[in-house]
């Protein structure tokens, strides 16, 4: 029997992801499991390390969302020590993080999902990659690459480095922003905002065209689940706020601060996977829930910035609420991309960002939890430290774990809808499309632009009856 596994702090997909599809006697697909075999054991590796190094060390968990780990770690340590960093530090961190979101969301929309959007789900597999996108729509592709660069440069300007930033430390930031750097940041942000607004319309048209070509995307690929995301004043927030949980009817079922996460989030080991899926524990029952862009749109009452808000309103009007479709993850990603640019603009326009960004701290024994909304969903870091500031225990919950159950359901639905009576390529494309909708770190990790290296195994009564593979 196979099961799934994904990328998370302790596990990573390497090489081939494997999907097992269970068949009934009539040949219908009854169950899907994404299986990956990798465990790095970060929760153990971190024990015994100097706590103040966690923001730098844990960024290395993921080269695709290092800034999320960097900030979740520093917030957890500050929670443990009872430290509140100065306002300038919070603004600088959020600015860094907006740069990261601009990079990450643009990368996903145009490089990872781009081939599906531009060339179609039934496009020639040999061309369904970023090179094919550049050939098909060179102007859009170059603008998208530029927008990604602008976000990453902003992340580097404030974070010291692009991949694996270093400047967030307990008590604030390791340097104060000066006028010169602020001017550089402003130039990046201004250009990014303009490009994002232009590309947003392009991306939305591509998504609409995709939905028109495949009406089943808007009828069959849906899952009523619970949702969780971070809100501040009711609006979507990536850096700070409370976790809000809604059920499949939209009713708020829980709202809590990150340190209470253990009351609500329940991990379970499954037999044939290194990945631990997470369930939402409310009223004595465990519920399947989703995090990510769509979840944030569902739990929030709106967006903090004006242009993102008007896109949000159109999203709600067009798709209803709560939206249980899987495909609009990309639509929501566009809204968040606009928000990230507008929010960055607000920060660079705020003179408070030039303030002193660091306060001294004293190490002591403690226990703390920190969280952020990573591009792919809520991310939690928890540390226990001793009097010498040495990590005694670490616990990490990442986005992809929380979407585990839903990813499997989406694979099953996609396989059932798109595959009946069609060839191997159709099965592989559908499975890959369903997985990629969640932008699991998996899609970055196994990589996959165009086509992800994939093995799909069809089983009847536990016996493999057919094996399909697609190499990278």
């Amino acid at each position, binding site marked *: 029997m*196979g*099961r799934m*596994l994904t990328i998370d702090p302790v596990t*990573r997909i*390497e*090489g081939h992801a494997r999907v097992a599809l269970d068949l009934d006697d009539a040949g219908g697909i009854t169950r899907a499991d994404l*299986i990956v075999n990798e*465990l*790095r*054991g970060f*929760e*153990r*590796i971190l024990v*015994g*390390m*100097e706590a*103040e*190094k966690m923001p*730098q*060390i844990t960024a*290395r968990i*993921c*080269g*695709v969302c290092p800034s999320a780990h960097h900030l979740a770690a520093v917030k957890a340590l500050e929670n443990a020590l009872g430290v509140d960093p100065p306002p300038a530090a919070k603004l600088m961190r959020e600015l860094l993080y907006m740069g990261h979101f601009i990079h990450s969301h643009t990368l996903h929309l145009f490089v990872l999902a781009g081939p599906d959007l531009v060339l179609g789900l039934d496009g020639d597999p*040999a061309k369904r*990659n970023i*090179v094919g996108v550049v050939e098909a729509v060179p102007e859009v592709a170059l603008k998208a690459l530029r927008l990604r*660069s602008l976000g*990453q*440069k902003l992340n580097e300007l404030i974070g*010291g480095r*692009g*991949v694996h930033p*270093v*400047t967030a*430390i*307990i008590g604030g930031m*390791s*340097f104060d922003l000066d006028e010169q750097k602020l001017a550089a940041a402003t130039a990046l942000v201004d250009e990014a905002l303009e490009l994002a607004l232009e590309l947003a319309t392009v991306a939305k048209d591509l998504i609409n065209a995709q939905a028109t070509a495949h009406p089943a995307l808007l009828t069959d690929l849906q899952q009523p689940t619970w949702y969780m995301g971070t809100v501040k004043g009711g609006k979507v927030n990536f850096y700070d706020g409370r976790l809000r949980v809604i059920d499949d009817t939209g009713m708020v079922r829980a709202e809590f601060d990150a340190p209470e*996460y*253990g009351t609500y989030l329940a*991990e379970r*080991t499954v*037999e*044939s996977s*290194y990945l*631990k899926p997470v369930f939402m524990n409310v009223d004595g029952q465990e519920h399947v829930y989703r995090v990510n862009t769509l979840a944030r749109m569902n739990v929030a009452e709106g967006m903090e910035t004006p242009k993102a808000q008007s896109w949000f309103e159109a999203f709600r009007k067009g798709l209803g609420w709560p939206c249980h479709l899987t495909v609009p993850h990309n639509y929501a990603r566009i809204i968040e991309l606009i928000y990230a640019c507008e929010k960055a603009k607000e920060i660079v326009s705020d003179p408070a960002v030039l303030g002193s960004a660091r306060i*001294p*701290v004293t*190490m002591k024994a403690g226990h703390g939890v920190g969280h952020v909304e990573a591009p792919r969903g809520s991310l939690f870091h*928890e540390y226990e430290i001793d009097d010498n*500031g040495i990590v005694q*225990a670490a616990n990490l*919950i990442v986005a992809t774990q929380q979407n585990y159950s839903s990813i499997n359901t989406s694979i099953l639905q996609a396989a059932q809808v798109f595959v009946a009576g069609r060839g191997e390529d159709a099965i592989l494309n559908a499975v890959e499309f369903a997985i990629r909708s969640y932008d699991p770190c998996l899609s970055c*990790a196994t*990589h*996959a632009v165009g*086509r992800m290296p994939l093995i799909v195994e069809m089983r009847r009564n536990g016996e493999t009856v057919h094996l399909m593979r697609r*190499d*990278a």
Partner: protein
Amino acid sequence: MTAEKIRINTEWLSVCGGCHVAIVDMHEKILDVLGAATIQHSPVLTDIKGYPKADVGIVTGAIRNEHDRHAALEMREACDLVIALGTCAVYGGLPGAGMVHTREEILQTVYVDSPTTRTDTLPSGDVSSLEKLVTPLDEVIDVDLYLPGCPPHAAFIFDGLLSLLEKRPARASSETVCGRCRRSMKKTDEAAIKRSHEGVPDAELCLLSQGYICMGSVTLDRCLSPCPAHGIACTGCAGPTMQILTEPNRDIRTELGERMAALTKIEKGEVVKTIEAGAKTYYAYAMATKMVGGKPTFLIHDWIERPGDN
């Protein structure tokens, strides 16, 4: 520029993915590279099957499982020159720090001791068992150019590729992180070692002179020194200098101890003891390579089993 485009394959093994993002972080220059080179097999940019013949192969990540071994061998077979890109490929990287624990310890921590995990079973079914160790690339295949860094700055990647196009040596030198650091080394009266969260470091003075254990002087520069430039002590993510790697009697802790003793009033032994007690932190990135982990003086199991001892 040669008339024919050079052919490049890239591959990732056990990695976080950051080295491939670093390649994309050449920004505008990636278009220059694409103009002069053809990217063939690559997990990020193309979907070319198998491993076509190539002039250059870029391999990121360490060897962790059978697939990694296979892919490394295929890359070696297909590529005239192989670049080991990133600290994981060169030294095993941070996941290599798992070598100080048994697999059983790791599984116990992740699946049983985790406070948010409500089951107490281990995955037992259709999962492959973990390899015992993380293995650097050159223990499995020959490597022509080592480019450590976590990740290496895109400038080094660009220069490395350009040097191959122009058939000249890469500019990547044996300079340490100090080479580009603009802080000034001065003898001070500093008498105590400071952890990086203690105090606020002066912006001009060498961090060692201020009592911070900055690893810049024992670490190869593949980053353009962003950490000391932003008030952060170097954590050694690009791995140790060639001298430390190749000379058995030299080590990170003794080198740093001598240097700090010369720059401050802190005794060498004090520095050595602090680094040993924090060995998981200070050796985090390169302990999986035999050149570090295999040194007879590298006794991490003794050090970390008696943390804070004496």
